[in-house]
């Protein structure tokens, strides 16, 4: 059982790191604000989600697990809201010179 949980941690956290890496590469390489936001929100949503999922078997107690999940949900909320605000500002002012 603990072997399977270790494996879950390993796979989920590694997959999360891949999403963060891809998001960072996208942030650096994509041509405009909207596509860069798209790359960034993938890192936040899926990357952090997978890291949290991988860490869940390692916490002691249900409460600590709930706290971890709450952090992910709050990051989702903030990421989604802020990227919409940035996207709207970017559309209104046009691409930076």
């Amino acid at each position: 059982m603990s072997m399977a949980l270790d494996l879950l941690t390993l796979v989920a956290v590694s997959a999360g790191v891949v999403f963060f890496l891809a998001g960072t590469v996208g942030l650096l390489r994509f041509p405009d604000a909207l596509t860069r936001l798209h790359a960034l929100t993938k890192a936040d949503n899926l990357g952090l989600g997978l890291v949290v999922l991988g860490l869940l078997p390692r916490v002691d107690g249900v409460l600590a697990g709930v706290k971890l999940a709450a952090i992910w949900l709050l990051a989702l909320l903030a990421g989604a809201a802020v990227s919409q605000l940035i996207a709207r500002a970017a559309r209104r002012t046009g691409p930076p010179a």
Partner: protein
Amino acid sequence: MMETLNSGLALLILALAIWTVVARDTFAAVVGFVAYGLLLALAWVQLHGIDVALIEAAIGGGLTGALLIRAAARLRNTEAATRAERPGVPARMAAALLAGCVTTALAVAVLALPDPAPTLAPDTAANMAATGVGNPITAVLLAFRAMDTLLEAIVVLIALIGVWSFAPDRAWGGRPGPLHRSDPDGILAWLARVLPPIGVMVAIYIFWIGAELPGGKFQGASILAAMWLLAVMAGLVDTPPVSRTWLRVALVAGPAVFIAVGAAGAVFAGAFLAYPEGLAKPLIKLIEIALVPSLALTLALILAGAPERTAK
């Protein structure tokens, strides 16, 4: 493994600090500073200073970052003109010399520290039971070095008075900051309705847990301040006119309770800010509960800026 990560973190912090200093664009420098604050918070976590990490993230990165972004936005119109002006060679040489001297002095001071560093940690651990609190940082901040914390709370208040003193005469006594408007069905207004209930709960939790675990009044107060500012920026509430009596009473209430408890200590326990035997923990809690609203309001109003609209 951990050493490699820590060295990487330290190098990243140094590189980002240098980048922040040399960045020519004010806004870019501010973004660098905020990221620097967050990395610094990670460094404090690695040093097991969770309380300091929380403060660094909330105030160093968050509130100071927001303050600097506002300042950068105000400076935007004059930035090109400022950048076109280059100081002469003597002025730049003098600045380089001064900066070099300060850096050298700091380096000498740090390298000359005795090893192992002098510490009062064993004394704190030995005497913590007398305060009744479980978090050594809280014991130091509100019992052993309560004077520092009192002065800190007063310094924040003085900073707010400094901000207010920038008000133009016609706006004195009026509402701080610009009038914010946003689409009432928009995403910002939505976030400003959804997030504050969660944020207020987290803030109270972080403040309450501070007696036993990392957390405390400054951390909780800055989250409260952020939630209120979110509602202000979304246009859901407006900042109160600074001439309101209730506002001024709320601002000084926290430090006033602190001073009153300190003065009572001088009468009943023999020294200013001393707590009578057995009453330390309730008095510490009383001071903290009184400080949180005052601190939250003070921090939020420092960010809201100088009064710039008349009270109508």
